[in-house]
């Protein structure tokens, strides 16, 4: 099992969710986050005075999927979250040692 984490632009969330669902993924956790990348935020003007937006709003998605489903999910996210512009975000995949469904105490892939 793999844990997929993706940071994407908030307005892309609905498209990503629909695309990921096509891979038969049953669960998805979303967190509103803020952060910066290589551009280090950007500046705006308020009444003529500059202010720096250090952290830009993003959405963090987390899913746990079976090993053979990783490519489908990652491709789905790339396809839908890509705008071709800076700040499209990142995806990373890590190993999951154990997974438990709390209600039934099912373990491993049965708990997916």
């Amino acid at each position: 099992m793999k844990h997929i984490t993706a940071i994407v632009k908030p307005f892309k969330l609905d498209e990503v969710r629909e695309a990921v669902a096509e891979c038969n993924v049953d669960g998805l956790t979303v967190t509103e986050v803020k952060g910066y990348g290589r551009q280090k935020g950007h500046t705006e003007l308020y009444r003529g005075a500059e202010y720096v937006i250090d952290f830009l709003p993003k959405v963090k998605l987390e899913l746990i999927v079976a090993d053979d489903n990783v490519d489908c999910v990652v491709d789905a996210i790339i396809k839908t979250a890509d705008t071709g512009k800076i700040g499209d975000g990142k995806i990373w995949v890590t190993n999951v040692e154990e997974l438990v469904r709390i209600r039934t105490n099912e373990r491993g892939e049965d708990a997916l």
Partner: protein
Amino acid sequence: MSELSYAVDTFYFLMSGVLVMWMAAGFTMLEAGMVRSKNAGEIVMKNFALYAIACLMYLGVGYQLMYGGGYFLGAENTSLEDNYYSGRSDFFFQVVFVATAMSIVSGAVAERMKLWSFLAFGVVMTAIIYPIQGSWSWGGGWLSELGFSDFAGSGIVHMCGAAAALAAVLQLGPRKGKYTKDGKPVAIQGSNLVLVGLGTWILWMGWFGFNGGSQLQLSGFDNANAVAQIFVNTNAAAVGGLLATMIVAKLLTGKTDLTLALNGALAGLVAITADPLSTSALAATLIGAVGGVIVYFSILGLDKLKIDDPVGAISVHGVVGVWGVLAVAVMGNAEFIPQLIGLAAIFAWTFVTSSVAIYAIKKTIGIRVPVKEEHEGSDMEELGLTAYPEFKMSAKI
């Protein structure tokens, strides 16, 4: 004089006064939205208190100094003869103008002046400073004899309020954190720009009373037409101001700065206040538009000079007030020299007396809130509450 026209003009005067009184709500909403949420409650309290002080002081002293209306009001008219409207309605209309002048100061000193020190200054401003200079023109004094023309008070009300505001701001200094170490202005964003919008609409609406009521009478063919022209021109100038500031901001920065655009609408209103009657609606639009352009560069310019004015009051009412008084001469409805003398006299009197009064308050009870209070907000320190208790204070990310 017929009883009917007396009743109509009295009623018109009173209702115009109500519209100007309602501008207090506009100032309150605008200022509450332009400050940070930690100071929003205090500024509401301050606006109510300054209104009350202005009304009390003008009743007791100011009306007598400005118009000879008697300390605590003289007698009411006893006959129709030579009287167009009730004497009490005249007082009511004039007293709400004083509150307007004082409201202008309130916005400029926001977020760092002690509440009771501000109110102490309000006593001097509304009892003496404003009424004395008002007596020079509207009270039939030397400025009116000179030919100084300022119909509803671009100079007498707005620039006067701004001159006092400038005197206070210079002695107060900028808000903590307003400038970086190398002197660059830092944006301190308002807590509620929706309220700023509501406040601006209220002021815009109240201005019909401010300018329209200054015709003093409604009854008769000429007066009725004049009032209608004033309403049309007042509205046109606000439109011109708003659009001009929006366009300048969009062209120069790529973004249409909301609060600057709303300042632009108010600048248009201030600009037309010195003569909302004798120009065409198109000329009024242009006068307002020039005001809108001026206010944009004035706000940014004062900010660079480290004159910290959270709501832009000195620019909107002062710098554009000067333009409004001069615009009367530009349009050929007054001479330049009396207009310039009037502006110089009002500014010098108001700025000097205000500076002295504020200096005296500074040396006795102090004018600036302590650093801790400024950090934590005047709401908690002055009022013992927060304006928005259900909202958690967000960390700065």
